[in-house]
């Protein structure tokens, strides 16, 4: 009798979990289904059609916003990953030194402040700089995105470094490799999965951002999410469903890649 007693069982937990998974995915499935709806109204089903994808594709505002999102996301993610890698090398595998706790706090600071507050702060700060320098390009958005992407890129890179074996690097040093050679030939190849994971996280985080972008952008600098928010505010068309579907697909692909890279055991 005692053996058949399931120690891991808790009444109702499985039912709640099942509900959660259904509830998490149901709205997304409905959203995707209506992207293929031929009817103009979003409340009835008018048969299968790809016309909303077509109309999104021909909408120059959508294409512009998408390209801008990618541009900002790529530059910000690459910068954030490089800086985060350097910072991770500087904050791991060491005895505690003065300033180490400060560095942890500083790097994670963007996670601790509500986005709206950062958005407001950057609006004020950058509007001053705009008046001062007259520059109003994408640089501000890239700087803002780089800053809030750093803690996300830092996470997997630091985790990877902390689990890395030190003996290989010591062996390289014993064989008269210079520190740079050791880094290039040993550390970097071992660290690579962490760096890739960090890069992808940073890119997804940048693509997702609405609030900070909404406050920092100048006129005509809509990214895809801020463009979509504007459209939803005005009233919804299945075109938004179509754009969302493509966006979702992209996220799923990136997350899948990320998942396999970061879970891969050596």
């Amino acid at each position, binding site marked *: 009798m005692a053996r058949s*007693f399931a120690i891991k069982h*808790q009444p109702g*937990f499985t039912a*709640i*979990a099942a509900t*959660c*998974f259904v509830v*998490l995915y*149901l*709205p*997304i499935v*409905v*959203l995707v289904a*209506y992207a293929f709806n031929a009817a103009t109204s*979003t409340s009835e089903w008018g048969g299968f059609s790809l016309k909303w994808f077509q109309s999104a594709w021909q909408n120059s505002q959508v294409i512009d916003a998408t390209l801008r999102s990618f541009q900002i996301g790529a530059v910000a993610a690459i910068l954030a990953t*490089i*800086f985060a890698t*350097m*910072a991770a*090398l*500087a*904050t791991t595998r*060491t005895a505690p*030194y*003065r300033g180490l706790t400060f*560095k942890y706090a*500083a*790097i994670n*600071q*963007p996670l601790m*402040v*509500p986005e*709206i*507050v*950062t958005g*407001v*702060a950057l*609006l*004020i*700060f950058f*509007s001053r700089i705009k008046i001062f320098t007259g520059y109003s390009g994408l640089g501000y958005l890239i*700087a*803002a995105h*780089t*800053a809030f992407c750093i803690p996300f890129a830092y996470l997997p890179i630091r985790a990877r470094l902390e689990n890395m074996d030190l003996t290989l690097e010591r062996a390289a040093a014993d064989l008269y490799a210079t520190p740079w050679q050791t880094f290039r030939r040993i550390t970097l190849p071992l660290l690579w999965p962490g760096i890739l994971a960090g890069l992808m996280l940073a890119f997804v985080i940048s693509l997702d951002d609405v*609030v900070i972008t*909404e*406050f920092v952008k100048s006129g005509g600098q809509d990214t895809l999410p801020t463009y979509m*928010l504007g459209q*939803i*505010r005005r009233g*919804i068309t299945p075109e*938004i*469903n179509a754009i*969302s579907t493509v*966006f979702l697909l992209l*996220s799923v692909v990136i*997350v899948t890649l990320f*998942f396999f890279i970061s*879970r891969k055991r050596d």
Partner: protein
Amino acid sequence: MASAEEVAREAERRDIRTRWLLSAPALLVIFFAATGPLLIVLVYSFLTPGPYGDVKWQFSPEAWISVFMERDIFDDTLSLAAAHVTIFWRSIKLAIITTIATLALGFPTAYFMATRSEKTRDLWLFLITIPFWTNLLIRTFAVLQIIRNEGLINTVLLKLGIISAPIQILFTDTAILIGMAYVYLPLMVLPIYASMEKLDFRLVEAGYDLYATRFQVLRRIIFPLVKPGVIAGSILVFIPALGAYVTPIVLGGGKNMMLSNLIELQFGQGRNWPLGSALSIAVMVIVMVALLAYVRNAGRSEVRHG
């Protein structure tokens, strides 16, 4: 001649210097494009609003007074600013309820995931990671399509004859609540799962051997052991929920403002940057207080169980 000790100390000093140089770019970017500007917000909250937005460089406590008070335009007397108090209260209330709701749903979900076999565990983790990294705006929009009057919920209920007219969920506080609980649920599940995965079920077994009931085991063994995950999850949900911007716009329809919408208003039509700044600092203070309370609570419970 330098002694061996001096050489070692010099090497250590050089190592630390290299470490500062390596972390400099990340720290500088964060300082200039995240942390530093927060100080400017604090300064702005004590200035006078300019006529076309921005500020006049003139000290004024007016912004801070009007966070909670209203000045009568005729006799200059102060009274409680009911609109602001309502919005503060709504934001805090909705953030707390969202945290509790996601905890009530997320805890069993994380437990379910952690008690699967090692192979299937990865699949469940993957299923929760997908919404985690999916655009928040898209997921909010997905909720909008489900709960509006012509949406799935109302259509099904109407067809089944349970209701005769659509229930108005959209553009209410309930809609904001549903939306926030939906989008922030993965943020609660993941850290709890991370703690739960390390749970040693021999302790659970020992509890049952000592005639504990299921509920006692849950309350006295499992919950204390995964408490760090619960605290991390609660912080991760509470902070963005308090500052939620997209959800009230999309699901609240602009009528049911939350703090972030009130702040945005001051930088747009309101043209009162100092008030917007003061409100932002107020949000920060609430977040800090919540964080401190959590940290203190976590520290205390660790001593008790440790």
